[in-house]
C-alpha cells in the first residue's frame, strides 16, 4: 500500500452539521466524535452516531479519561467507554495527556500535569489500565497549556516520548496545541517536533486559537491560523498512516467552510483526493 492510501482527512462531528452527515455524502474519510456525548443510555445521540457510522469510519475522542489522575483511572467510565467502542468499532480511541478528576471532583477541563518522573509513572500505569479494559492501544493527545511547573524533570516532548515508549500508546498530535503551548511557554516548535516520536503519530488535530490578554488560548472557535498551517506543512513529510482533521467547537461555520479548510490540509500534505470509503 503506498503512502497516499494511508492518509485520511476528516472532521469533528458537531450538532449543526448532523443533518449534513445524515442526509448527504459529505466528502470526508472519517468523522471524530466526543465519546462522552454518546456515552448515554439511548435517544437521538446514539441514533445519530449509529447512522453516521453506517456512512463513515469513526474516531472516538474523549475528554474525561483523566490519564494524569493520581487517583487512577475510573474503571466504571472505562467500562462504559468499552461498551461504546464495541458498538461503534472506531478506528481510533483517544484522550488527552492531562488530568480532569481528583477524588470525586471533576473539573470539566483539561488540567496541566507536571512533567515529573512520578507523573510519568502514574500516566503510564493509567494508560496501561485503560488499554487493558479497552483491549486496544490508546491514542493520547498533547495538551495546550497555560501553566508550567517548576519541579518538572523533563520537557513535554521528552515526557511524551517516554510515555509512548513505556506504555505502548500512540500519539494524537494537535498541531495547534504545539503552537499555543510553544508561544505561551517560550519553547521552539522545532524542538518539540524533533522530540516527539513522529512514528507514533496516528492522528493530527488542526484548530484555531485566540489571543488572550497575555497568552494564546486554545478556543477552537476560529479557522486554523497560518502558523499552524506552516507547522503542518513542515511535518507532513514525516506522517504515515495518519488521520488528519479540523477540530471546531465554537462559532461553528457552515460545513463548506470546514471542508475548504480540510482541502487545504490535503493540499499541504500533498495527498490529493481522498480514496477511503
Amino acid at each position, binding site marked *: 500500500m503506498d503512502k497516499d492510501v494511508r492518509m485520511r482527512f476528516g472532521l469533528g462531528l458537531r450538532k449543526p452539521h448532523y443533518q449534513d452527515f445524515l442526509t448527504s455524502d459529505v466528502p470526508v474519510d472519517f468523522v471524530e466524535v466526543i465519546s462522552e456525548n454518546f456515552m448515554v443510555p439511548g*435517544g437521538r445521540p446514539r441514533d445519530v452516531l449509529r447512522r453516521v457510522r453506517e456512512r463513515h469510519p469513526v474516531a472516538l475522542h474523549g475528554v474525561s479519561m483523566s490519564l494524569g489522575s493520581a487517583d487512577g483511572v475510573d474503571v466504571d467510565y472505562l467500562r462504559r467507554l468499552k461498551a461504546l467502542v464495541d458498538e461503534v468499532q472506531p478506528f481510533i480511541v483517544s484522550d488527552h495527556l492531562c488530568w480532569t478528576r481528583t477524588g*470525586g471532583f471533576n473539573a470539566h477541563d483539561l488540567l496541566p500535569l507536571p512533567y515529573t518522573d512520578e507523573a510519568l509513572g502514574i500516566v503510564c500505569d493509567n494508560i496501561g489500565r485503560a488499554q487493558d479494559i479497552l483491549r486496544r492501544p490508546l491514542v493520547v493527545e498533547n495538551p495546550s497549556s497555560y501553566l*508550567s511547573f*517548576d519541579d518538572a524533570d523533563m520537557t513535554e516532548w521528552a515526557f511524551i516520548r517516554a510515555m509512548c515508549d513505556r506504555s505502548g500508546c500512540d500519539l494524537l498530535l494537535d498541531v495547534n496545541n504545539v503552537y499555543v503551548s510553544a508561544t505561551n511557554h517560550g519553547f521552539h516548535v522545532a524542538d518539540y517536533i524533533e522530540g516527539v516520536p513522529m512514528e507514533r503519530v496516528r492522528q493530527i488535530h488542526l484548530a484555531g486559537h485566540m489571543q488572550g490578554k497575555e497568552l494564546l488560548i486554545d478556543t477552537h472557535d476560529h479557522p486554523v491560523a497560518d502558523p499552524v498551517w506552516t507547522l503542518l506543512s513542515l511535518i507532513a513529510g514525516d506522517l504515515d498512516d495518519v488521520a488528519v482533521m479540523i477540530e471546531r467547537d465554537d462559532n461553528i461555520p457552515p460545513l463548506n467552510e470546514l471542508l475548504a479548510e480540510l482541502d487545504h490540509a490535503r493540499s499541504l500534505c500533498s495527498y490529493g483526493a481522498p480514496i477511503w470509503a
Partner: protein
Amino acid sequence: MGLRALQEDFRAWLVSEDEGSVQRLPLGDRRGLPVYQNNYRGQLLGCLEESYPQTQAWIGSEAFRAIAARHIDACRRCVWTAQGTNMRKGFSRQRRWRQSFPDDPEVVELAALELALGEAFIAEDAEPLTQEDLRSFDWDHAEIRLVPSAAFLSFHTNAEDIWCALDSEGACPQPVMTAQADTIVVWRQDFVCCFQRLEADEAALLPALSIGLSFAVMCERLVGQLGVSEGIERAGALLARWTQAGLLRRPGRDA
C-alpha cells in the same frame, strides 16, 4: 510536591480561589491561572444554561447566572460526572430556587420540567407497544409497562404552558396556581420529548406502570371506582390513549 497533593491544591484553588492552595503549587509563572479558573466556571455555567434554556428565558440571564454561580460555589465537594449530570440534577432541586423566588412557584417547576425533558432525551431506548400489538393482547395476563423515559412531576402551577410559550417564542401566559397538585408525565416518543398533564384517575394508575401492572388489575381498580361497565370502558380508553402516545413498551426480553 507529589502529584496527589498538587491535584488536591489545584482543585481547592479552582473551586474556591483559595490563595493558600495556589501558593503551595510549584508554579514558575502564574499568568495562566485565570484561564483555568474561567474555563472551570464557564464549563459549568454553560452546562446549566444548555440544560435550562427556558428557565433562564423566564427569569432572565442575570438572575439565572447569579443563582447558577451560587450553585457552583455551593457544590465544591459534589461528585460531578463527566456530563455534569449530578450538578444539573442538583440545580433543579435546590432550595435556593424557593428562597430566591418565594412568590414565583412556577420557576422551580419550570426547572424541574427542563431537567425531566433532558433526562428523557437520553433515556434508554425501548420498543413501544403499538395498536397492532393490542390485537393480539393477552388481556387476562399481559403486564403493561411504561417506556424507560417516562417520569412524573407534581405541579402546582401552569409551568408547562409557560414552557410551551417560551419554546415557541409565543406570548407567555400569566403564572397560575392550581388548587391542588396535578401530575405531569414526561416521556420520549421516538426521538421527541413530550409531556402531558394527567387526569386524576390516570395519575393514580400510570406511575404504577413503572414496575408493571397487569391489565386485569388495572380494570379492577377502575371498576372499583366507576362500576363494571364504565370501569372497563375507561380501562380500554386509557390503554388506547397511552399506546397511541408511545407511553407503553412492548413486552419482550427486557420487560
